[in-house]
């Protein structure tokens, strides 16, 4: 076409108008990406500051979701390590609202249920425990004294971290084993021969300390003595208050259903049956619900970031009037101008979003590794963060881009 004939390559890229009209302006996508990044490359500080709002918002969202996923994952690992087949039978309340009693024979009855693998029980006593005789009686530290059967640690998933647990011999004597929290509160961190505590008006020898029992946290703050010893020295009536049992994994529900009637055939309604690992599971889920607040804060930050991006784009369009005019003179359509500024806004938010994801992952990694939890970033967190950034860029950039495209080329070229 005319003078362009000696430059066929440049013209070949243009598609001729179907009706014999002039070629229609065309811009390659690679070039669009390049000109969309002009604003970012030439005004770096401004771009960085306006992307910061988005970055903070996305970082907050990713970190909140990452932290909760990491700690849930940790809890779930813990649960599966401890097993989900532990069931707990406790004395409930009678019809009249009084504390019910479990029959003395209940543990033995439960042991006879086919799929039950092991049973242990505790019974609460009214005794108090002190480090020595000199401690005032009111300083109980909130510790309880419980009678405990000899198989307890194995059933609840705890183990002895110092000394040894009650056995057939010590079970009848004034010998106590401390839950890990009880040991801390009494100021005992190791076991040596002849160590005693003042328990229910008698000296009891300390045999061992248990590790934390995640599935039965009530044991942590207990001082455990043998059933026989409790009856002999503490006036304990022999009725268990909590029975722990392990059922076969595939029969947990079946066992659960018959436990109340087995434990107390006369008044099964007085018996409470629970699955502690299910409660932990619920806690893991409930943790995510708490995140709503922080996610809300992240969303507010994103909103502020969006306003920042929109603001910067409006200013950018005002400042770059002559560039817009020049581009129109060089053959850019309104669509090209609109796409340029829209892409610039999206690119700006995308940079913010990517930085935010990086920050969120780093925050999660630091926090999780400090708590020895696995680092888990749910796909929904980073994909959602990136998606939110793109959407925000598009929304925030839309109005400025439309304004830029509407600007008449003659106005744009008029120098101020």
């Amino acid at each position, binding site marked *: *076409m*005319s*003078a*362009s004939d*000696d*430059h066929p*390559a*440049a*013209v070949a*890229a*243009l598609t001729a*108008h179907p009706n014999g*009209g*002039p*070629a*229609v*302006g*065309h*811009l*390659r996508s*690679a*070039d669009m990406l390049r*000109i969309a990044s*002009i604003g970012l*490359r*030439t005004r770096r500080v401004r771009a960085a500051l306006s992307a910061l709002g988005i970055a903070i918002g996305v970082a907050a969202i990713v970190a909140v979701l990452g932290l909760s996923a990491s700690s849930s994952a940790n809890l779930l690992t813990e649960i599966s390590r401890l097993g989900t087949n532990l069931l707990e039978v406790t004395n409930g309340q009678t019809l009249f609202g009084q504390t019910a009693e479990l029959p003395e024979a209940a543990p033995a009855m439960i042991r006879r249920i086919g799929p039950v693998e092991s049973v242990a029980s505790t019974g609460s006593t009214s005794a108090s425990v002190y480090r020595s005789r000199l401690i005032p009686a009111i300083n109980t530290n909130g510790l309880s004294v419980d009678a405990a059967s000899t198989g307890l640690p194995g059933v609840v998933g705890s183990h002895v971290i110092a000394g040894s647990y009650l056995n057939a011999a010590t079970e009848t004597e004034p010998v106590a084993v401390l839950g890990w929290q009880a040991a801390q509160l009494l100021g005992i961190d190791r076991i040596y021969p002849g160590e005693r505590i003042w328990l229910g008006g008698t000296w009891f020898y300390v045999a061992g300390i248990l590790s934390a029992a995640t599935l039965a946290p009530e044991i942590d703050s207990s001082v455990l003595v043998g059933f026989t010893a409790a009856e002999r020295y503490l006036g304990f009536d022999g009725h268990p208050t909590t029975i722990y049992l392990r059922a076969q994994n595939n029969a947990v529900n079946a066992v659960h259903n018959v436990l109340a009637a087995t434990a107390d055939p006369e008044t099964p309604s007085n018996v409470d049956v629970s699955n502690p690992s299910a409660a932990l599971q619920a806690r893991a889920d409930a943790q995510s619900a708490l995140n709503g607040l922080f996610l809300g804060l992240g969303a507010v930050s994103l909103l502020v970031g969006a306003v920042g991006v929109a603001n910067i784009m409006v200013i950018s369009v005002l400042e770059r009037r*002559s*560039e817009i*005019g*020049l*581009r*129109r*003179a*060089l*053959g*850019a*359509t*309104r*669509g*090209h101008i609109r796409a340029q500024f829209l892409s610039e806004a999206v690119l700006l938010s995308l940079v913010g979003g990517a930085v935010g994801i990086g920050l969120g992952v780093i925050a999660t990694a630091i926090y999780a590794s400090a708590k020895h939890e696995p680092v888990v970033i749910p796909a929904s967190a980073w994909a959602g963060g990136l998606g939110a950034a793109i959407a925000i860029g598009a929304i925030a950039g839309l109005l400025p881009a439309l304004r830029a495209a509407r600007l*008449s*080329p*003659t106005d744009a*070229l008029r*120098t101020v």
Partner: protein
Amino acid sequence: MTAGPVLELDAVTKRYPAQPPVIALDEVSFEVARGELVAIVGPSGSGKSTLLHVMGTLDRPSEGTVRISGFDVSQLNDRELAGLRATEIGFIFQQFFLAEHASALENVGDGLLYTGAPAAVRHAAAAEALDSVGLAQRARFRPPQLSGGERQRVAIARALVGHPAIILADEPTGNLDSATGKTILDLLDELNRAGATILVITHDHEIADRMPRQVELRDGRIVADSGVAPSGQMMRAAREPLVR
């Protein structure tokens, strides 16, 4: 394309809505043939800028017909007009309008940006165009590193890189001292002799008098037109390649 005029204006009127309406162009008619070097001269307020915008398809006339390379501008939509500007029209502005962050080569290459030409083609054409304005050595320089005259040369190279049918220059020497301005006018002269059709808008009669043809504009009307130079001469010039 047949050998018709590159630019035709027929009774072009541009009115701006106001009380009373401002008539910026009043039934302006003239033609520019291929290979011409024309000066449109007039005092400020005579409608020069409006004429430039209308000729450059950046603005539409209120009445009358504008034809570029035979295309009636009133029949084209925004996208087609943009395509026309990308391929058929080159602009040179008083303020250069160069991208400061980009090299001279990239600035010139941007003249082909909206034709959809691949980057390699744009680079080759830009290098050629820079060479034709005598700036081959400055291809990697950015505008702030160039003198005013060199910047305008870059802008001229950008206007001619796509070998447009017509180059519209709006006060091309307005921001330059007279010595530098003279070299720019010499360059336009040289490019015209190599075949480019160039229309220079100026308020300066001294500049206009250097051009083979002068069209004088006053209060939106053409008051004098020195007329078309012998056409055979120009047609021969047009067949020679623009850039050697």
